[in-house]
C-alpha cells in the first residue's frame, strides 16, 4: 500500500501514461487509411507493475510509457491493421480511466487540504 505522497506520484504517472495513450489512439484513427501503417500501442501498466513487484527502490520519473507497434493484428489489402471499432473502444476506455485518475487525484488533494485546515 503506497504512502500518501506515493499515491500522488502513482496517479501522476498514470495520468501521464493515459495522456500519451490518447495521442496514440488519435494517431491510429488519423491513419486508419494510410497504406502500410501498423497500429501503435502504449506499454505502461505492465512496466509499473513489474517495477512495484520487484521491490527495488523505484523512481517514478523512470516509469515512462513506451510506444510500440504490436504487429499482432491482421492487415488489410493496403497493409494497414487499424480497426476503427477497436480504436474507438480503446478511446472510451482510456477516457474513463483518465477521468477516474483525475478525480482520485483531486480527492487526494482535497483530503490533504482538509487535514491542513485542522480542527476548527
Amino acid at each position, binding site marked *: 500500500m503506497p504512502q500518501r505522497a506515493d499515491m500522488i506520484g502513482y496517479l501522476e504517472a498514470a495520468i501521464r501514461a493515459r495522456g*500519451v495513450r490518447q495521442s496514440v489512439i488519435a494517431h491510429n484513427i488519423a*491513419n*486508419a487509411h*494510410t497504406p502500410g501503417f501498423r497500429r501503435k500501442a502504449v506499454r505502461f501498466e505492465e512496466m509499473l507493475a513489474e517495477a512495484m513487484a520487484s521491490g527495488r527502490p523505484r523512481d517514478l520519473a523512470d516509469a515512462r510509457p513506451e510506444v510500440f507497434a504490436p504487429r499482432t493484428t491482421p492487415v488489410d489489402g493496403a497493409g494497414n491493421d487499424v480497426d476503427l471499432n477497436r480504436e474507438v473502444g480503446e478511446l472510451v476506455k482510456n477516457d474513463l480511466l483518465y477521468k477516474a485518475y483525475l478525480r482520485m487525484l*483531486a480527492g487526494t488533494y482535497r483530503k490533504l487540504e482538509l487535514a491542513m485546515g485542522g480542527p476548527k
Partner: protein
Amino acid sequence: MGRIGAVNPVDIAASGLRAESVRLSVIARNIANARTSRTDAGTAYRRQQVVLRTDPAGLTGVRVEQVRPDLQTALKRTYLPGHPDATDDGYVLMPNVSVPTEMMNMVVASRSYQANAAVLKRYQDTTNVALELLR
C-alpha cells in the same frame, strides 16, 4: 521506439479531419466528372486518388502526400455515335470513374471523418475534467 515525439491529440485529430476532407473533395470531384469525356488536356477525365502517408516514428498524425490520377484502370470505351468526341467508328472514351466504388469510398471517408471528430470531442471532455481540478 523509446522516444515519444508525441503531438497534441488535437493536432493529430485535426490532421485526420484534413486528410478525410481532402478524400471527400476528391470523391466529389470524381463523381461530378463521371461523364466528362474531354478535359483541358484533350483526353477524358481520369479518376483522382489521394495518397496518405505517415511518419513511421513519432505520433505526427497523417498527411496527404499527393492527389494523383488513377492510370491503372482503363478508360471506358463507350459506343455513342454522334457524340462530339466520338471517333469515326462511333466510340467515345469515357472516364474510368465507377460511381458505386466512389459511393462506397465516400461512406468510408465520412465515417473516418466522424471518428476523428469523436477523438476531438473526447479530448475536449477529458480536458474539461482536468480543468475542474483548478476550481
